[in-house]
């Protein structure tokens, strides 16, 4: 029955497009709204009828087994929330009816792609849905067809294709000694041939490909251009889930289910994570454009996730996944606010902004919550996830990495505070007297996302038991 998560949106798209003359944009909007809301609700309340039950008529025709464990649930939740946020932002930033219709269709396709990645139990299926997500995001980035966006989309396309090739080569080499590409077969094959140089090479190729997709240093070249030049709603989607579902989730799944936490893998992950944190933080300091700074900040935060995951202990994995969830929420919040500001002021250049919060109070307040959560200030949820990661590093004896993490936390706080003061507080710049608060839909979206951040921070013990502890099950013993 989880296949319905993929089948229903697909049939929806087919029906919407078949009758596209008669369907208005509103029908597409509410259909997408319902689908994403259903996905959120289903991943919060694990109703056994949906997740474990079988529809006989469906099984006879579509007999696939899905990977349903707590990691998939959390990812599905992230996908649902961020897609919903992107949908609402799109409603108020795109202007043409027909454009909105096509945008919503593409948005549903990206969501299907990511849900497919998360639910797949087979390496090649994961690759196929990764391509679905990638192709839909290329078109989304180039949606407004302005020069910057086209260049960003093209650069992303080339690097993503190179990543694809690397993954394909890895999969092909895996087939030399494994029966198929499903996770169990790969696991048993790797346990038999693990020390074989060819096997290690195949794994290395695959992981390099996934690093490119996830925007980790040194393969992050496409990320700032793609994030900053994409239209506002697409930036929300990209920063919130696409990079994470495509890149980080894949690493987590491959390490947790296929090859296990061997020492070289752990060292590699921790090294790449730490480098990403530092490079992202330093690069974000010097940016003048709001969205570009947020893009480099994303690289930095994703470095935290990979660093925490690379530790390999239960605490590390829990911290990493929780930080993944938090980053989806607060990065989407920040991008939604940048969309509000952009729709009112017309630019994303920070030098042209100042004192915005006096005219846009809700946007300013929610941005403050987003920034504080990103820098790890208690009692917001970002604080807990960073704390768990640092604790996991300390417990494991990696004192240097823990020090790097703490230092970069301070750096993050620094640049975010500078930005916050520059854009939202301080004196109101000259040309900005006429702006008002952004439209209700966008304000409501940022409000809800901020509430989620506060709630997850305040009710942390409950969150810990409900979401984090089940994650223990995904690690191979």
């Amino acid at each position: 029955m989880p296949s319905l998560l993929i089948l229903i949106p697909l049939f929806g798209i087919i029906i919407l497009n078949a009758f596209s003359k008669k369907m208005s944009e509103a029908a597409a909007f509410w259909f997408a709204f319902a689908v994403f809301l259903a996905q959120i609700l289903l991943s919060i309340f694990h109703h056994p009828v949906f997740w474990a039950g079988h529809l006989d008529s469906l099984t006879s025709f579509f007999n696939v087994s899905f990977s349903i464990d707590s990691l998939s649930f959390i990812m599905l939740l992230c996908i649902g929330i961020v897609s919903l946020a992107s949908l609402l932002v799109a409603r108020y930033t795109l202007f043409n009816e027909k454009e909105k219709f096509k945008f919503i269709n593409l948005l549903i396709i990206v969501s299907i792609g990511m849900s497919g990645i998360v639910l797949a139990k087979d390496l090649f299926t994961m690759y196929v849905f990764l391509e679905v997500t990638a192709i839909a995001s290329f078109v989304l980035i180039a949606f407004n067809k302005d020069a910057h966006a086209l260049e960003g989309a093209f650069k992303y396309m080339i690097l993503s294709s190179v990543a694809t090739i690397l993954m394909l080569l890895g999969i092909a080499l895996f087939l030399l000694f494994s029966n198929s590409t499903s996770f169990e077969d790969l696991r048993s094959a790797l346990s038999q041939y693990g020390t074989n140089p060819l096997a290690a090479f195949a794994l290395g190729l695959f992981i390099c490909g996934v690093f490119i997709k996830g925007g980790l240093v040194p393969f992050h070249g496409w990320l700032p251009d793609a994030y900053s030049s994409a239209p506002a709603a697409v930036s929300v989607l990209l920063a919130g889930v696409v990079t994470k579902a495509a890149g980080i989730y894949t690493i987590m799944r491959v390490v947790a289910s296929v090859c296990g936490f061997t020492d070289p893998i752990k060292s590699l992950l921790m090294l790449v994570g730490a480098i990403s944190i530092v490079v992202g933080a330093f690069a974000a300091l010097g940016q003048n454009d709001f969205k570009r700074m947020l893009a480099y900040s994303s690289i930095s935060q994703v470095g935290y996730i990979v660093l925490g995951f690379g530790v390999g202990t239960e605490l590390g994995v829990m911290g990493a996944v929780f930080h993944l969830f938090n980053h989806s929420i607060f990065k989407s919040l920040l991008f939604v606010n940048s969309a509000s500001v952009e729709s009112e002021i017309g630019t994303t250049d920070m030098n042209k902004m100042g004192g915005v919060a006096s005219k846009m109070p809700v946007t300013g307040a929610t941005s403050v919550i987003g920034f504080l959560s990103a820098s790890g200030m208690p009692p917001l949820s970002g604080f807990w996830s960073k704390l768990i990661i640092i604790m996991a590093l300390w417990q494991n004896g990696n004192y240097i990495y823990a020090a790097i993490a703490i230092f970069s936390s301070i750096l993050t706080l620094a640049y975010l505070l500078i930005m916050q003061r520059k854009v939202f507080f301080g004196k109101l710049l000259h040309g900005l007297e006429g702006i008002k608060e952004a439209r209700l839909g966008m304000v409501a979206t940022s409000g809800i996302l901020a509430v989620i951040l506060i709630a997850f921070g305040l009710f942390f013990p409950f969150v810990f038991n409900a979401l984090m502890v089940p994650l223990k099950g995904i690690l191979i013993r």
Partner: protein
Amino acid sequence: MSGESWNLFLMFGFFVVILLAAGLYCILITRNLLRAVIGIELLVKAATLLLIIIGYVTGKTALTQSFVITIIVIEVVLAAIAGGIALRVYRHNNTLDTHLLRRLRG
């Protein structure tokens, strides 16, 4: 694996690596956007060739053929979209040369 099929695999693998190098060189050196897309296509063909030879050598031809068919579908869509984006870039700037494009934006 028998020695003969291993030699066959090595021979094909050698040419696959050469194809990969050619495609990678094409992407890195070219100044024309469309030629970069052709380079990507060459890389993918190298990957499909590797899949096929591994399928033959280990006897799993059915599995690898399914993979190759899926990959070909994905590649066609990618080529179409890449062509579309290159076309848009051309319509904006009247050129497909990356050096000229960089100079335009400053």
